Structures are given as structure tokens and as C-alpha cells.
């Protein structure tokens, strides 16, 4: 299940929804939130822009790629867009599997791909003004660990 939405989500509900089969042995989840500071400067809001026609397809591709690499029983990705405040939830990734290693790896893989392969852009609103967030070399390095050839 993949959703791109303005509304908030309840991580507890999402995790519970992944516990649908008795043969599931592990559920690993990640929740990304808006930090209230960037380089010691207070952040008042964040805008998440995306490319609507491409986003869903891109997230489905990431999900399929994870499923082809690991034994995944259930998968949920929720990514919010629009204006967010400090401490708001941005993204949820949840993976259910028979064994924990698959769920840990798949969850981290999906988060790394979300940060480097899906068409989302963050803009920060700081006391000094607004600025687009620059892509981090470390995020690309993290994504490349997964042998994307």
C-alpha cells in the first residue's frame, strides 16, 4: 500500500495493519519527522513539493525493487506533501516479513531510495528566510550501498 497525502497518519494504526498474518515474524517501521532546527537556525515550517504524475510510479518502483530483494509479506509507504510544521510526521515506511533481517534491510533500503530516487523536494522556512534543501552526498552514498546496477 502506497499513499501520497497531505493528511497526517497514525504510526500505530499503520504498524497494526501490517500484522495481518500469523506467519509474520517481524515488522520494522520508520517514521521521518520535521526537525525544528537546521544548522542552529529555528525552522518555522517546511514545504514538501512533488511531481504528482511521477511520484506514485516512482514509489511503486521502489516497493517492487524491495520485494524482489527480500522476502516481504506486507509493505506500507506513506509520504506527506504540502506545508508541514516542526515535529510533524513526514513519512512512514513499514515492512512485515517472516524473519527480522528481511524487514530491517527492506525498510532501510526503501528509506534510502525515498531520499534519492523519488521526486520530492523540501523547502525550509527559517528565521533568515526560505531555502530549498540541498541533496546530501551522504544520502546518495547510502543509496549506492545497495548495488543499484
Amino acid at each position: 500500500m502506497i499513499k501520497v497525502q497531505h493528511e497526517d497518519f497514525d504510526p500505530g494504526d499503520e504498524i497494526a495493519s501490517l500484522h495481518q498474518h500469523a506467519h509474520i515474524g517481524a515488522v520494522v517501521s520508520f517514521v521521518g519527522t520535521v526537525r525544528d532546527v537546521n544548522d542552529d537556525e529555528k525552522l518555522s515550517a517546511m514545504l514538501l513539493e512533488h511531481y504528482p504524475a511521477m511520484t506514485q510510479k516512482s514509489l511503486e518502483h521502489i516497493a517492487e525493487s524491495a520485494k524482489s530483494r527480500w522476502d516481504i509479506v506486507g509493505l506500507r509507504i506513506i509520504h506527506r506533501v504540502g506545508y508541514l510544521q516542526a515535529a510533524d510526521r513526514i513519512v512512514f515506511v513499514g515492512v512485515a516479513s517472516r524473519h527480522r533481517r528481511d524487514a530491517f534491510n527492506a525498510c532501510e533500503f526503501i528509506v534510502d531510495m525515498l531520499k534519492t530516487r523519488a521526486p520530492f523536494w523540501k523547502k525550509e522556512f527559517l528565521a533568515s528566510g526560505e531555502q530549498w534543501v540541498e541533496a546530501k552526498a551522504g544520502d546518495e552514498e547510502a543509496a549506492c550501498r545497495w548495488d543499484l546496477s
Partner: protein
Amino acid sequence: MIIQVCYFARIREHLGLNEEHLSMPDGSSIEQVVDFLRLRGEPWSQVLAADQKILTAVNHEMSKGNRVLHNGDELAFFPPVTGG
């Protein structure tokens, strides 16, 4: 041929434009569209300068500069992504 061109994030703001339709010679590549747009001068030549890190997608899939375009294609320009 007519293609639809879309701009996102910092690029969209610098150009003050979300999207436009362009008439290009049949068989044009992404690189040729970029060259055409740069010839418009500022802000295009600056936003699409060779030293700018820009990603491109055709019909919602990431594509490289030598990709040949067809009538009706949707070409998007955007900066490196920062989601998650």
C-alpha cells in the same frame, strides 16, 4: 513535434513557470531541448547552465540527456530530490 515541459522546485521558482508546450524538430534529444532553452538567455541560460545539477524525466521516468523525444512526450526538469 510538440512536447510538454514541466519545471519543479527551485527551477520552477527561478523561471517563474510551471510548464509550457514547446515545438521542437522531430527526433530532438533532451540535450537539444536544453540547448534551445539556454538560447532564450536569462534566466534560462543560468538555471540550465552546464554546471547546474539538474535531473530530467521523460513520461515520468528518469532519463539521460541523449534520450530522444517524441511528439506528446512530457519532459520534466528538476533538482536532485530531497524527500524522505
